């Protein structure tokens, strides 16, 4: 019985895959056919839109319109029936839970970006000098492939707590006890829990920083470094005065990417603590408003706050793109 339903499921999956990919290709072929009936000039005018159309429709339907609608909803009440002005925003910027979330997000932002980038940079420089570089990089980069949920389970296990006296099964507490301390409730201690969560993100993202920075460092022409050494710079000076300035744009890219990622962080908090004990961040509060309190006005307002936070990054990116197009 179970097997039979699994079999239909697998067949269904295959059918779905064929439907997904084949359907799209058929769409493009069909549209192309139709456009070929037109005269040359019209064909040239229409064809770009045929190619770009499906993507534009999807972007409009799933990103542009919903974003606009969310902005609109943020001015309505919980059931989206009545216009209530800026009340939701007043809530978003004065509510205690929100203020804690802001504080936490700021903490995440500063610590994750700074430590991941710094650590990634140091590792990138270090692994450049050893023969087993690919292996070391692979191991550090590996967490990038793991989901936030998976990583959360891994780290719940690392942070696992047993009462004093019992054998500790969590790695960290085992070490703490081994060193003669009391076991620590990493996830329940309000002074520590946020840092415990942030550590997971750092563990996940350092590999990303390292890979990007490492490839930027390798992209620096060898003769530039040699010229600096010929000019009498020692390794430290070469690093600070040549390497860092030359990879500045990559550092900027990595930083902005991490910024956006951290602002949106949700899964780790949701799985590890459910946002309890002062660990909520903006994104997890938004989901809470949506599902737990079913207040779509407040949820939308919080989402808009997130959007406002990423707008500077958006502007930087578009500027950078403009510059590149000019070159």
């Amino acid at each position, binding site marked *: 019985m179970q097997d039979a339903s699994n079999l239909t499921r*697998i067949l269904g*999956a295959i059918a*779905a*895959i064929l439907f*997904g*990919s084949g359907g*799209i290709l058929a769409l*493009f*072929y069909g549209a192309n056919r139709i456009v070929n009936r037109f005269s040359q000039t019209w064909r040239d005018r229409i064809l770009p839109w045929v*190619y*770009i159309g*499906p*993507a534009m429709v*999807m*972007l409009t339907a*799933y*990103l542009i319109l*919903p974003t606009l609608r*969310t902005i609109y*909803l943020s001015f309505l009440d919980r059931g989206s029936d009545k216009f209530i002005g800026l009340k939701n925003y007043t809530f978003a910027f004065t509510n205690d839970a929100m203020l804690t979330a802001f504080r936490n997000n700021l903490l995440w932002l500063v610590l994750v970006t700074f430590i991941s980038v710094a650590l990634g940079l140091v*590792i990138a420089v270090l*692994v450049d*000098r*050893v023969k*087993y570089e690919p292996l*070391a990089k692979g191991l*550090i980069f*590996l*967490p*990038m*492939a793991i*989901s936030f*949920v*998976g990583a*959360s389970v*891994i780290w*719940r*296990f690392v942070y696992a707590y047993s009462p004093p006296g019992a*054998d500790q*099964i969590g*790695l960290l507490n085992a070490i703490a006890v081994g060193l003669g301390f009391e076991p620590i409730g990493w996830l329940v201690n309000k002074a520590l829990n946020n840092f415990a969560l942030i550590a997971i993100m750092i563990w996940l993202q350092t590999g990303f920083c390292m*890979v*990007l920075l490492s*490839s930027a460092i390798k992209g620096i022409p060898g003769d530039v470094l040699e010229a600096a050494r010929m000019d009498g710079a020692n390794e430290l000076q070469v690093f600070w005065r040549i390497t860092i300035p030359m990879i500045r744009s990559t550092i900027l890219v990595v930083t902005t*990417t991490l910024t*956006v990622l951290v*602002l*949106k962080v949700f*899964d780790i908090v*949701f*799985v590890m603590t459910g946002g309890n004990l002062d660990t909520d961040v903006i994104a997890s509060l*938004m*989901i809470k408003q949506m599902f737990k309190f079913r207040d779509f006005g407040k*949820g939308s307002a*919080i*989402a*808009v706050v997130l*959007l406002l936070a990423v707008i500077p990054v*958006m502007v930087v990116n578009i500027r950078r793109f403009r510059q590149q*197009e000019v070159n």
Partner: protein
Amino acid sequence: MVAQTSKSNQGSLLEKLIAKAPVHIAVVAISFIWTLPTIGLLISSFRKAEELTQTGWWTVFEHPFNFTQFHLANYADVLTGQGMGQAFLNSLVISIPATVMPIAMATFAAYALAWMRFPGRQLLLALIIGLLVVPLQMTLIPVLRTYNQLGLAGSFLAVWLAHTGYGLPLGVYLLRNYIGTLPKDLIEAATMDGASHLKIFTRIIVPLSTPAIASFAVFQFLWVWNDLLVALVYLGGSKEVAPVTLVLRNLVGDRGQDWHLLTAGAFISMIVPLVVFFSLQRYFVRGLLAGSVKG
């Protein structure tokens, strides 16, 4: 004379080693620390439930060749008893079309943006780059409402389409950057050879862009497979359609202290990404590089 050189050689070799020792120690230590949590999970997932909650996983190294301390029951349990097997299939059903669909759309769009002339091209590109960083959270409520009205909530189609929409900005952007750097002469040569846009696309652009397409494919696949938020919001709680991430997260909520289930479940959720990662790491890294450094 000879002895002297060889001695000084030895000295310099030793010196080199000593000078490099901190580097080696640091690299090995960091790699070790970074790997340890995952190793712990992997080992634990094979340990017996009682032992797992009694002693730390590192105690297995006290008798490294005693294989009786390991078994596969945790996996059997979580796969059938906790619905992980079903979830694994669901994850595949969700991830593959949610990867193929945006690839097709993004590649066509990227070709048009790179090589076709039409008004508003630059504006569209700027828009797509702007959309690259829009938080998903901005879209959840309206899309969910629409899904509820259409009766799509809780269906695979709902998540396929949503992931397609969310993945497109990166896909278009990444592929346009790549396709835009193909030599203009090649495309013109194909035009002279009598190829229509569609033929140029299928016979020249797609074969030459496989590295970039593969990069985006790997990236999108991992993203969808590892996603929790989209599945949580649009699929709801139904076990019929829940992917591994959702089941794993529910497991954490319901059976938070059953480490034998959690570790095995987590590892099942990780196995596909890890395989993809190890076999296609090159493309994954290239996707990241193209997506970020180039800019």
